[in-house]
């Protein structure tokens, strides 16, 4: 199959998997590989951990990677609003992926153990990190237990609160990476702020990555 061939759903892409690894938009039936979406065939290579070249075949809908995925995908950096904070989870609504705003919000969960890296369970309360109505930058990650909702993580320096408001709806100013101060009352509150990179590359060819230009 030549790269760039336009396929409709159900078109046979390969007779067998062969040396390729299956990417998005393909499925295997009767030992043959069929396309499951309409788009064009794309083949790319990358080096895996043991330095072997892996060829991945996939079907893409458009050249823009954001258009390929209908839903937030694992590894994507999304903007979310914290709707409610519980004991073990914070309920969030995913608003946008990169600079593409979704038509409808997707509900997501932010578990307590995904607040800070390398710490299984925190004794600190949730409000030291995020509070209701905060806007956060978070990464979508996989969780074996939760399938029906997206699971978010802010366990990176670049991720965390980007916009928050105080008790009276006033803007909060950042003091340092863990503290914000109210512009009206002068009261300080703890938050995990995001170190938003100046040069933000949200999408690479095959996976999403953030690059800091400090």
């Amino acid at each position, binding site marked *: 199959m030549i790269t760039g061939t336009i396929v409709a759903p159900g078109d046979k892409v390969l007779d067998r998997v062969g040396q390729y690894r299956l990417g998005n938009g393909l*499925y295997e039936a009767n030992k043959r590989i069929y396309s499951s979406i309409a788009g064009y065939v794309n083949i790319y290579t990358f080096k895996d951990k043991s330095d072997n070249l892996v060829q991945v075949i996939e079907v893409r809908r458009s050249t823009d990677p954001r258009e390929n995925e209908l839903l937030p995908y694992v590894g994507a950096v999304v903007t979310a609003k914290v709707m409610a904070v519980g004991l073990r989870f914070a309920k969030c609504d995913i608003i946008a992926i990169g600079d593409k705003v979704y*038509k409808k919000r997707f509900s997501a969960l932010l578990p307590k153990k995904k607040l800070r890296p390398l710490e299984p369970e925190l004794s600190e309360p949730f409000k030291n990190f995020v509070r209701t109505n905060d806007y956060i930058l978070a990464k979508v990650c996989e969780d074996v237990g939760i399938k029906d909702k997206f699971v978010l993580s802010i366990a990176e320096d670049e991720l965390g609160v980007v916009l928050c408001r105080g008790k009276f709806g006033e803007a909060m100013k950042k003091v340092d990476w863990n503290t914000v101060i109210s512009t009206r009352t002068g009261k300080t509150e703890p938050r995990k702020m995001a170190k938003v990179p100046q040069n933000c590359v949200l999408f690479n060819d095959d996976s999403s990555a953030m690059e800091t230009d400090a």
Partner: protein
Amino acid sequence: MPTIRSNLSIPLNELSRIADDQKEVDQTKQRDSSKFRPLCVKCGVFGTQDGSGYAEFGNTRVLAQIFGPDGDGKWEDSYAKITLNLKGVEDETKLAEYRAEIISCISSVIFVQKYPGKVIDIEITVISDDGGALSTALTAVSLALAHSGIEHVGLTTSAHVVLRNDEYITDPSTSESEGVIGGVTFSFVPNLGQSTGINLYGRVPIENVKNLLEFARQKAISLVPVIHKAIVKSVDEMK
């Protein structure tokens, strides 16, 4: 700057290709009974919609739209819920029959496990019904699915054939299907060779059913290139 909300492009000249007052003309005399009525299919009608498709067989015109996959906050199962909103069918018996048939056809085609906790809402509008609305609706949904990017097994084609005095008529209009013994709407996925829906009605003799189904299958296969071409064209335009 004006906001362009959609790139609606139902070809109006093709819509008016068969005038409405021609409905009563006996079209079987003009066309071969093994051929379809003049048809028009389009994948991707509305630009801002998640997915849309349009199919027209003679005077039967159906528009299908897809909303989603969205999370509604209530559905928490490990697979996607598919809901159907069927408009333009007034007869309640027909409505229930079509709804069940379409839901079962679509659910068997979509990879629902890939969208856990999501809802896929399908809206079908029968703009005009002149026989074979079910097969036209299934074709329109297949086109809308291809446009939406929701992963599914493959395109579905469907054909409506009737039996009249040992003669099979393909895709008859309402006037042509007078005095028929019975008929079948057959839909299947051609790449896997699996049928997704068979809607048999009337008093078809049991010994004729096999031949009727085989005839319908052949007719459905003959539609594959047309639908395939429409989908490929829409991808080409998007690119």
